[in-house]
């Protein structure tokens, strides 16, 4: 089997390109996706290959083009909507919240909404609070959405392909700071199934659960503890909703201790939900209370040291691991 070493942005581009090849109903629209080749170059070359009917630059009107895409999905197409930043999805919140995730149930199953909303989520580098919000807890709260947050190029490609083939609305969360991260992945076509978490490092003393960019800090913290003979099991959720609680629970039943790391805010976040489900499934298996490492309860500050301090980092994760291991 052939392999290729590619960046996450190229993995995403390949997923879109392959699915556009496979299904003529698939098209992509968003701000600067076509002639500009994408604000983060995920769609580079797609206009030249597919033309302006299927790679479509929109005006700056997220509510309008997100709603248009939902209407197109309900009437037989399979749109991919790029948000230049997930923060801009708030302008389209009514379309996502009142239409995309509700149309199927509300219509008694008459209409499907096969659509992918994708783009960079969470903090980038010093873009302050209106460009740094993590949206998974917000959209994860709405029944009807699938929420995916891949952490590497292999998963980014395989999960985006599965998302495009899904008959349901998918919130697909990328990260601006990791678009350039490389990985060796197959050249042959493959899919990664939605709803399956992955143990990315086996360990026996404590379970560390996260997704997306925060996994880097998790690995660093685990490396540190490994030096002291403590083995940390790391789980990459990959899909946030539906949550693969089975993979999580079997790890926690093995290690009896668990730390949850989330880039987003602590209050009513993904870790709050995940932690509660661990309590429901593993109460008798836990030897220590769960500990969360999340973004502190501040809007994102601009200044570098403040930004660093409000986000989870390796030291905060180490502290948390030591707390549950004590």
């Amino acid at each position, binding site marked *: 089997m052939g392999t290729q070493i590619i960046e996450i942005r190229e993995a995403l581009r390949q997923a879109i390109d392959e699915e556009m090849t496979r299904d003529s109903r698939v*098209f992509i629209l968003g701000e600067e996706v076509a002639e500009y080749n994408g604000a983060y170059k995920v769609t580079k070359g797609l206009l030249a290959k597919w033309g302006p*009917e299927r790679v479509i630059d*929109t*005006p700056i*009107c997220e*509510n*309008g*083009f*997100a*709603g*248009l*895409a*939902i*209407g*197109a*999905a*309900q*009437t*037989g*197409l399979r749109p991919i909507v790029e948000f230049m930043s997930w923060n801009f999805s708030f302008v389209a919140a*009514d*379309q996502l919240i*009142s*239409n995309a995730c509700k*149309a*199927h*149930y*509300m*219509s*008694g*199953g*008459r*209409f*499907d*909404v*096969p659509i992918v909303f994708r783009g960079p989520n969470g903090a980038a580098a010093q873009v302050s609070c209106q460009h740094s919000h993590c949206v998974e807890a917000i959209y994860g709260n709405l*029944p*009807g959405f*699938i929420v995916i947050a891949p952490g590497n190029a292999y998963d980014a490609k395989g999960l985006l392909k599965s998302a495009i083939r*899904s*008959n*349901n609305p998918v919130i697909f969360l990328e990260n601006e700071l990791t678009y350039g991260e490389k990985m060796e992945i197959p050249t042959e076509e493959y899919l990664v199934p939605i709803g399956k978490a992955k143990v990315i490092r086996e360990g026996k003393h404590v379970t560390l659960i996260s997704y997306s960019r925060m996994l880097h800090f998790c690995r660093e913290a685990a490396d540190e503890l490994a030096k002291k003979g403590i083995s940390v099991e790391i789980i990459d959720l990959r899909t946030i909703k539906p949550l693969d609680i089975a993979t999580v629970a079997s790890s926690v039943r093995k290690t009896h201790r668990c730390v949850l790391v989330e880039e987003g805010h602590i209050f009513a976040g993904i870790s709050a939900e995940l932690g509660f489900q661990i309590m429901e499934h593993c109460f008798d298996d836990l030897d220590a209370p769960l500990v969360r490492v999340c973004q502190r309860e501040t809007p994102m500050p601009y200044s570098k040291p403040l930004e660093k301090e409000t986000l989870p980092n390796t030291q905060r994760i180490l502290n948390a691991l030591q707390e549950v291991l004590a």
Partner: protein
Amino acid sequence: MSKRAPYHFFEADPKKVLAELGKDGALEFLKKMLLIRNFEIRGEQAYQQGKVGGFYHSYMGQEAIQAGCIAAVGADHWFTTTYRCHALALLLGVTPNEAMAELYGRSTGNAMGRGGSMHLYADRLLGGLAIVGGHVPIATGAAFTIKYTKNKEMASFCFLGDGAVVQGAVHESLNLAALWNLPCIYVIENNQWGMGTAVSRAVCIEPIAENMAKAYGIKSYTVDGSNFFNCYALFDQVLNEVLQTGRPVLIEAITERFRGHSISDPGLYRSKDELASTMEHKDPITLFKNALIAQKILTEEQFKELDKEQREIVIAAMKFADESPWPDQMTLEQGVFAPEDK
């Protein structure tokens, strides 16, 4: 106020419309308007009896607009409307039984009891959507699909209220449809009131469509929404134009709802005398009936018979709804997601 300019009403020759529709066609749509009227009257009664929950937005007084539209263009297009959706659903083939059962929240309802009064659907009716203005991008998306699939036979029809025209979603949709040449026909049903706020207190221009369309470089029309013939002829003409040009069109139908915004609205903000006068002089069913009687297509007795027939259909629908089972609670969590294996 200087911003108020005169309307330019689209006028049609009723005789020409009748010649096109034929006697049977005209009577068929009179019957449909009577079905809508009886449905709304009885539906409100059922609401008062506690059989129907939630909100109830009656289409009474506005029947000629959507009836004229469907009479002219048929049901094989995409349609999207507001929470005031019973009439369009009935016109697009939803049976009175399934519509009433939906209002009653029963398993036999049009949306399995999940949508209720504000969310009715048909194969080509995308809803019944209840966020003011929020359905307009959806309708625009249906027009996008028509263009994307190179379908030259269909248009997307979007009904919205005067209250919605100040929503950003509406303006974003008009810009996209005009920019991308989408075959979308936007119909502002100006019933004079956005809930209890008079249109003149909410919208800075008048006429609405004639002014707004200019800003988007698209065609507009104003029509008397109480006149079936004018509505029919306008929709017939506009569909042909849109299929030919692929450009969106903005229509303003002037009407007045006979009821409050919803059933819980006593309508204290408008004069009872004016409303009584509107109901007397601008009732679309009376106007249609009188025209058909004048053309000797109908007699007063026949009209009463038709009305009775439709009333009985609606009463039977209420019985059907009342006797229908409630949704099985086991089904509550089913269908949140579409099946992945189809």
